[in-house]
């Protein structure tokens, strides 16, 4: 990690509420290109809220603070513009869209991104080639793309589909919200391999997880513990082991 690393994400003193309830109470976080950050924390600590706010979910209100993505004020942009700049959110609960096939969904997404980059839409042939290539990254059955988005998918298939979409869109920063929840060991390995294959020195990942298990496969540079809407501790990957062995209470009481 040299000093020339580019700033990817800069969150400063971020406060977020839903209705009258404050969920994030001053989050500060910096992610540079080439890094993998893990955010851990007990239930209700605000992990998913942080992910959703960064992606542009409108049900939350930012009451204070800022978030910059590659130097751009993220909070001023609608979700689709954040995505086109290269931000990706892997959903904890991927949404089912009956009637819309994965092919058509991804075609719309990829071509929107190309339009933004002033590139012509992909031809049907080019698109299918790209799909096949990226499906291989997550060992996905090609039959899935002809079905409704996430419809009738198992938990593991849904998460694989998220990583597949990420592979298609090649984001600069991917925030993966509990991508490991509900996965068996094999699916976990496939998903983690997908992430590792897509990792370069120019992009970055923020991996949100409950458990240390995922971090055996995706090795983080920095681990943060989020509690009651604040990052109470940051450290190397050993922090994740500490959480695993001693529990959150130990870390909470130690701060």
């Amino acid at each position: 990690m040299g000093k020339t690393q580019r700033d990817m994400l800069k969150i400063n003193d971020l406060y977020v509420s839903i209705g009258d309830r404050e969920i994030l109470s001053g989050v500060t976080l910096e992610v540079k290109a080439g890094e993998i950050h893990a955010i851990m924390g007990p239930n209700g600590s605000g992990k998913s809220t942080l992910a959703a706010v960064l992606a542009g979910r409108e049900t939350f209100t930012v009451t204070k603070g800022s978030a910059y993505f590659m130097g751009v004020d993220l909070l001023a942009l609608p979700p689709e513009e954040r995505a086109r700049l290269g931000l990706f959110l892997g959903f904890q609960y991927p949404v089912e869209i009956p009637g819309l096939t994965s092919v058509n969904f991804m075609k719309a997404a990829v071509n929107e991104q190309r339009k933004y980059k002033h590139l012509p839409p992909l031809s049907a042939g080019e698109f299918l080639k790209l799909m096949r290539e990226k499906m291989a990254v997550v060992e996905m059955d090609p039959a899935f793309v002809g079905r409704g988005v996430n419809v009738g998918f198992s938990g593991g298939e849904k998460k694989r589909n998220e990583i597949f979409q990420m592979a298609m869109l090649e984001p600069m920063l991917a925030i993966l919200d509990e991508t490991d929840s509900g996965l068996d060991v094999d699916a976990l390995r496939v998903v983690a391999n997908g992430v590792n294959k897509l990792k370069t020195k120019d992009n970055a990942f923020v991996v949100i997880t409950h458990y240390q298990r995922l971090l055996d496969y995706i090795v983080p540079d920095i681990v943060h513990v989020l509690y009651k809407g604040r990052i109470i501790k940051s450290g190397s990957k050993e922090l994740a082991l500490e959480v695993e062995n001693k529990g959150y209470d130990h870390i909470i009481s130690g701060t």
Partner: protein
Amino acid sequence: MKEYTYMPEVKRVFQCTVPGGNIRQVFLIDGILQEKESEQNGVSLTSGPDGKGLQLRISGDHSENPIQIISVRSEDLPRPLEFYNTWELEPGAKAQIVVCDHTLREYLYQTVRFSNITLGEGAVLDLLFMQNEHGRSRYRLEVDAQLKKEARLDCHILSLYGGTIQNKVTVHLQESGAVCNLDGLYLADGEQNVTYDIEVRHNSGECNSNQLFKGILDEQAKARFDGIIYVAPHAQKTEAFQANHNLLLTRDAKITTLPQLEIYADDVKCSHGATIGSLDPLGLFYMRTRGIPLSEAKMLQQMAFVQDVLEHVRNGAIRSRLEKIVESRLRGEFTKCTHCTMHCC
């Protein structure tokens, strides 16, 4: 000089883009048949006794050769128009009929189209009504169908555009083994008003009926779905299903849905259900996080909503044409057509 002339150059002026190939096009202008009465290869085509409407009598298998009935209201007849159609399929006959109704100018047209349909034993009819008029037209369709033993009727109604559209469909399943699949799709915005009045009568046992009606209402549009499944006392082993699903895009759009079952037999399998909902905000957010703009995400969700109705149209060329028309309709492209009421279909 007139802006439009239809006859004798109907086909030149009226550019119908429903996929051609082996489609036989039959034109009616103001309810009057525009070709000579004929009887060829088992298709008999005549005007009604009052000189209006279309009488069809079909024998043999014509399932691969659709008949398209294009009915146009001209500017020459601003008066209300009613015309009767009698279509009969002889036992074992198979046919595919596509009915397209249009008006050419924005007059306050009122059109009533009656279609009496008889399907003989084992006859199969695949019927599609495309209702594409303009914002001030009043249009009413009445279908009354009688199905004999093991006959099958697949009827799709697409209410794409029109000031007031009323559809009344009554199907009588008269003898065992008859099957009826009814689908409807209604898209309305502005002050448009669409009603569906559906009655499926299981007068005999061992018949099967399926209904799927879906609507998307925008702005102040109103729709009403009134559907009855009637099962006669002796109609045992009936299987009858009905579903009506609605998507309201604004708070001002209104749908009244009245699904009803009237069952007098005791060994039957019947169900009905209706839903009213709005676009799924989480689904929209999901699409937007993939870079799809909100307007496009809404569009995709609406297309996804109507997909199963369109999938029921078996003719692939017509189905993909319909998908395009529905999409351009949902994109609001019809309303931009100020110079023409054809909406490119």
